């Protein structure tokens, strides 16, 4: 049986969640039972897909396509109850304000629990997760590296015992290119491109992972310079300025695309979609994600 885990990350505001949703939709359409996972206390997809609620247990959006919201806290809770097979003991230990707060901030523990759950399928360890494909809409760059490094860090800190063993196992799975795929989403602007370059190189250097770069909201059409010259003579000031800015933007987009293609020749460019409708937007983007 195949098992796929896709991690989608990138700088804040580049459209990670939209790209993750488009990718999940594509996988679902191909027949894989797909779970789109977001991390944190508040759901983005709840309003995005107009769902009544999104929580820890998967909510179906359409056929083969469900969404869930994970926190380190509830991943850890589920895992520990699964291990010790006794909810009362769990409650005794974790269900007090102090421990809750502690788990929330304890170094790497929430991150480890999240990554442990994400990789539980191929590792055949932990509570059952009945999906073939998991798409993780991950935190912005900095937090993503904390997620990635949690297992390795814990394995180093705790060499013996089950925790160390599972941590090594998670770390190994994350580095397995057959199972885990990584996407760094980026906008054709200086700052996100620089951050993506750094993240791409860091992932390769530190984890031996080759990520796919996804350049979102690209202006793709080729406009001849004669069009810009003609626009300068337009009677409308708005159109004139539009044309001037369009030329600047397309120039920047070409430059940024070139820069990223040097790192990843298989860069996936996604077009700017001038449409507010989420379903149509996702359909267009998922077509392009091959």
């Amino acid at each position: 049986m195949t098992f796929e885990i896709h991690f989608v990350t990138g700088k804040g505001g580049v459209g990670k969640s939209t790209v993750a949703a488009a990718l999940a939709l594509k996988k679902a359409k191909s027949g894989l039972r797909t779970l789109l996972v977001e991390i944190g206390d508040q759901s983005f997809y709840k309003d995005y897909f107009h769902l009544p609620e999104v929580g820890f247990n998967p909510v179906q959006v359409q056929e083969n396509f469900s969404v869930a919201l994970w926190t380190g806290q509830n991943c850890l809770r589920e895992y520990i109850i699964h291990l010790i097979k006794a909810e009362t003991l769990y409650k005794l230990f974790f269900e007090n304000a102090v421990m809750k707060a502690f788990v929330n901030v304890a170094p790497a523990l929430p991150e480890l629990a999240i990554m442990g759950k994400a990789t539980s399928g191929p590792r055949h360890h932990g509570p059952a997760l009945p999906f073939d494909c998991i798409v993780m809409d991950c935190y912005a760059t900095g937090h993503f590296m904390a997620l990635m490094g949690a297992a390795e860090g814990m394995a180093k800190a705790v060499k013996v015992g089950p925790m160390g063993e599972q941590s090594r196992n998670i770390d190994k799975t994350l580095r397995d290119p057959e199972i885990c795929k990584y996407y760094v989403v980026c906008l054709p602007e200086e700052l996100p491109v620089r951050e993506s370059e750094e993240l791409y190189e860091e992932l390769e250097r530190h984890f031996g992972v080759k990520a796919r770069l996804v350049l979102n909201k690209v202006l793709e059409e080729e406009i001849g310079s004669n069009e810009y010259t003609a626009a300068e003579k337009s009677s409308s000031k708005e159109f004139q300025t539009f044309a001037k800015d369009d030329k600047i933007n397309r120039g920047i987009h070409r430059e940024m695309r070139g820069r990223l293609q040097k790192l990843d020749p298989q860069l996936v460019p996604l077009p700017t979609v001038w449409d507010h409708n989420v379903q149509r937007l996702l359909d267009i983007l998922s077509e392009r994600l091959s």
Partner: protein
Amino acid sequence: MKILVCVGNGGVGKTTLAAAMGVQAAQRGLKVLVLTIDPAKRLATTLGIEGKKDITRVPNQNFKGELFASVVDHKKTFDDFVMRAAAKSEAAKKLFENKLYQQLSTSLSGSQDFTALEKLYSSYESGEFDLIILDTPPAKHAIDFLNAPQKLSVLFNDKVARWFREPKNNSVGGVFLNLLNTGTKQVLSIMESVTGSELLRELSDFFLSIEQWQERLEARITNVHRMMVDPETQFCLITSFDEAKLLEAEYFLREIRKGGYHLRSLVLNRSYPEWFEGKAGTLKEKPTGAEKLFALYQKEKIFYDQRDREHSAFAEKLSKETHVLRIPEVAEPISDLQGLIRMAEILKEKGDSE
């Protein structure tokens, strides 16, 4: 002294806006400090803080007041805080070597928020500036920033510490031991079987090292909180436009009021391109020789028209209690002080000043 805290999701242009607000205040004659978290290279160069850790006067300025800037160095701020808080320097040294501390002070979610506030407070204490503008760390949710100190405070809380410090010696006791009593042994053995004894040792070392500085930490957090709810401290929520983000902004506004904080404005950044003039500017007839460009123009026009309507409805809904500013996206990236001055002018034009 006044404080302006810029909060918002990552990638919405917080840092640039914070710097532009700094420029605007300096133009009005104030001595301003802009505390940034992770400025883009060009912005850092513009502010003269690239690769520097100290508060720096922004070069090439000619304002009525004065503009200073600094990057918050997390590791250093955290360590400084520990040095001050630890009663003995050996305790601090031991803590610096603890693996959990090393992770905690660098990669823990929330620690950046903590150090940003810590840096803000020490700059505030110095009394050297008329206005301090804080650019907050990127977060998935703007609200996380406000909860960070309390989260951390609980971690260093003596009750938690005592609980971990005391696996064997009953004399230390502690609220939780008493509470759990017979359950404790069982619980610790479960934890040991799940995590391994090494982790427990690291944890107990960690809490031994931070013994006796809870009081200082609590005092600090109380002071920081007092500073944050002072009417002279105002918040500016910066967000981008889309349905989900706007709902989140509404949630944040409610939280900020509930917490007793003061909101100055809600900025919808990059909400339309600079060329967009709304209905008034619309070109209807096809210009000769620019057909392709015109088709694109029409598509974008429809898109931004719709967005404009949604914006207006949103601003209308909030207008009673909140000042909503819509800031256009400028085509050319801001790369020098002139760019910031231009952004400051846009802010002024949109009515953002005290």
